[in-house]
């Protein structure tokens, strides 16, 4: 027998939990959260450092504390969470097929689906680093799990490639566990991590951040014995003669995150080639009606607080979709084009009739820019110009949208978001 729920949420991490809480508050009667891990909370469980929740809770929490607050909120009537449950597929008819060790294979019919599967780390295989494949090469998140959850140290002497926040956090974590971190090498001329993490995780411990550097060789057959780092030119190719070998037993990779959309692709959801996440409209609805997306499966965030905010919106929109029996918004659907320094926007489509006032448009830029105007234009005519002193690829930007900007837009109108001179 097929079970029925108003809303099925795939993923019980920060996005899924915030979506569930908001959907219940918005009146959804039955909500099912399907989580692959044995516990709720997702990646927050291994992010034991602090700095979470300043925006959402107004205080500084660790990852497990932040997850714990949401796990407490989902308890109670209306929300059922099934952990240890792997979703295998969902379809355009909003059926969800999953498996666990209690029910075996089962199918759920959903009024609406919220995708909240999060993201994965880019692996070594995506980098083409020459050398053998010895033990001692980990993604930063794997090392984080080993230390913080399993209580095992991945190595004693480390080099870190990539200056994403997880890599920076792990530099300090390893140092605190008595390991030596020789250097953090970053291919780009700037770090993708937060300034706070560069200062408090690297500078505090005298760990050098080598910008415009990459790993060119890994020595060692059974175990990593040394890692060779070289400077790169403007073309990001290694410069001969700049190689330096660091004797070490461990290489951590913190080289980017990829939204985990195998289920979405198989279901036929349109995926943005820029973000790797679904293209969504102002209501965070994907190209499949009644299927919504939020959090890192949609686009990679830097702060969980913004994931919670986005996921709550997705939960509310999913509840509204069920309440309205799947009726779409009337009026035009305007494509949003990112250009001139703006890499992408979420949403990628705006239906003015369905736009909540101050609904956030989120985007990232492709380089470091100073003193620019973020410009929103309809058919080439600017409707908003917001000055920014600095924009960096590592920090997500937000523009609160206003419905009045689009009042004169017609069915063929286009929206552009770009960086312009002040």
């Amino acid at each position: 027998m097929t079970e029925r729920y108003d809303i099925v949420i795939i993923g019980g991490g920060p996005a899924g939990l915030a979506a569930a809480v908001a959907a219940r508050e918005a009146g959804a009667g039955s909500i099912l959260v399907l989580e692959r891990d044995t516990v709720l909370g997702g990646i927050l469980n291994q992010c034991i450092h602090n700095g979470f929740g300043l925006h959402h809770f107004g205080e500084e929490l660790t990852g497990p504390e932040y997850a714990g607050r949401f796990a407490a909120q989902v308890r109670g009537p209306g929300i059922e969470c099934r952990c240890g449950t792997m979703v295998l597929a969902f379809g355009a008819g909003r059926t969800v097929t999953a498996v666990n060790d209690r029910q075996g294979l089962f199918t759920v019919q959903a009024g609406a689906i919220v995708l909240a599967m999060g993201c994965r780390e880019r692996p070594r295989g995506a980098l083409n680093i020459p050398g053998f494949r010895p033990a001692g090469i980990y993604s930063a998140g794997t090392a984080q799990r080993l230390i913080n959850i399993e209580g095992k140290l991945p190595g004693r002497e480390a080099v870190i490639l990539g200056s994403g926040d997880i890599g920076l956090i792990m530099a300090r974590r390893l140092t605190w566990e008595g390991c030596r971190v020789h250097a953090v090498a970053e291919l780009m001329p700037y770090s993708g991590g937060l300034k706070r993490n560069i200062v408090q995780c690297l500078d505090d411990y005298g760990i050098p951040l080598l910008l415009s550097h990459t790993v060119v060789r890994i020595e060692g057959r059974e175990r990593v014995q040394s890692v060779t780092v070289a400077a790169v030119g403007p073309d990001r190719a290694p410069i001969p003669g700049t190689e330096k070998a660091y004797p070490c037993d461990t290489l951590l990779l913190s080289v980017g995150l990829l939204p985990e959309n195998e289920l979405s692709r198989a279901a036929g959801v349109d995926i943005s080639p820029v973000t790797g996440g679904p293209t969504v409209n102002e209501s965070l609805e994907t190209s499949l009606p009644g299927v919504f997306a939020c959090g890192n499966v949609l686009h990679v965030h830097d702060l969980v607080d913004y994931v919670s905010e986005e996921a709550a919106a997705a939960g509310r929109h999913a509840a509204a979709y069920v309440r309205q029996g799947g009726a779409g918004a009337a009026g035009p659907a305007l494509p949003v084009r990112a250009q001139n320094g703006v890499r992408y926007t979420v949403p990628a489509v705006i239906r003015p009739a369905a736009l909540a006032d101050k609904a956030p448009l989120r985007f990232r830029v492709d380089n470091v820019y100073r003193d620019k105007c973020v410009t929103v234009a309809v058919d080439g005519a600017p409707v908003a110009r917001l000055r920014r002193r600095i924009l960096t690829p590592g920090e997500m930007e937000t523009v609160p949208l206003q419905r009045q900007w689009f009042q004169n837009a017609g069915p063929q109108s286009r929206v552009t978001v770009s960086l312009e001179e002040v």
Partner: protein
Amino acid sequence: METRELTCINCPMGCQLTVTLENGAVAKVAGQTCPRGEAYARTEVTAPVRTVTTTVPLTGGTAATVSVKTAAPVPKGKVFAVLDALKGVTAAAPVHIGDVVLPNAAGTGVDIVATCERQ
């Protein structure tokens, strides 16, 4: 007269701050582009603090570790003393968020508390 170089952490600008000290007191802060930079530099030079977050082994439960933190930030110079004080410390299941795992760590007057639930 002594000068210290700092990177402001308040926003992505990351202003390079130069703090001039006279007899241990802040005489001048330069390089900031907003008032938050000066406030950060004064605190960071005179009394920097950090929150320490780590794990201790769990006994009598199913998980291997319990995540813990200093209940309040401790002086930056005490970070490794706090970590040393935690060597050999374990926590027995069940553990709840906020449970004191080690009181008054390394004489800082700050307790180490659990940050996760463990059965």
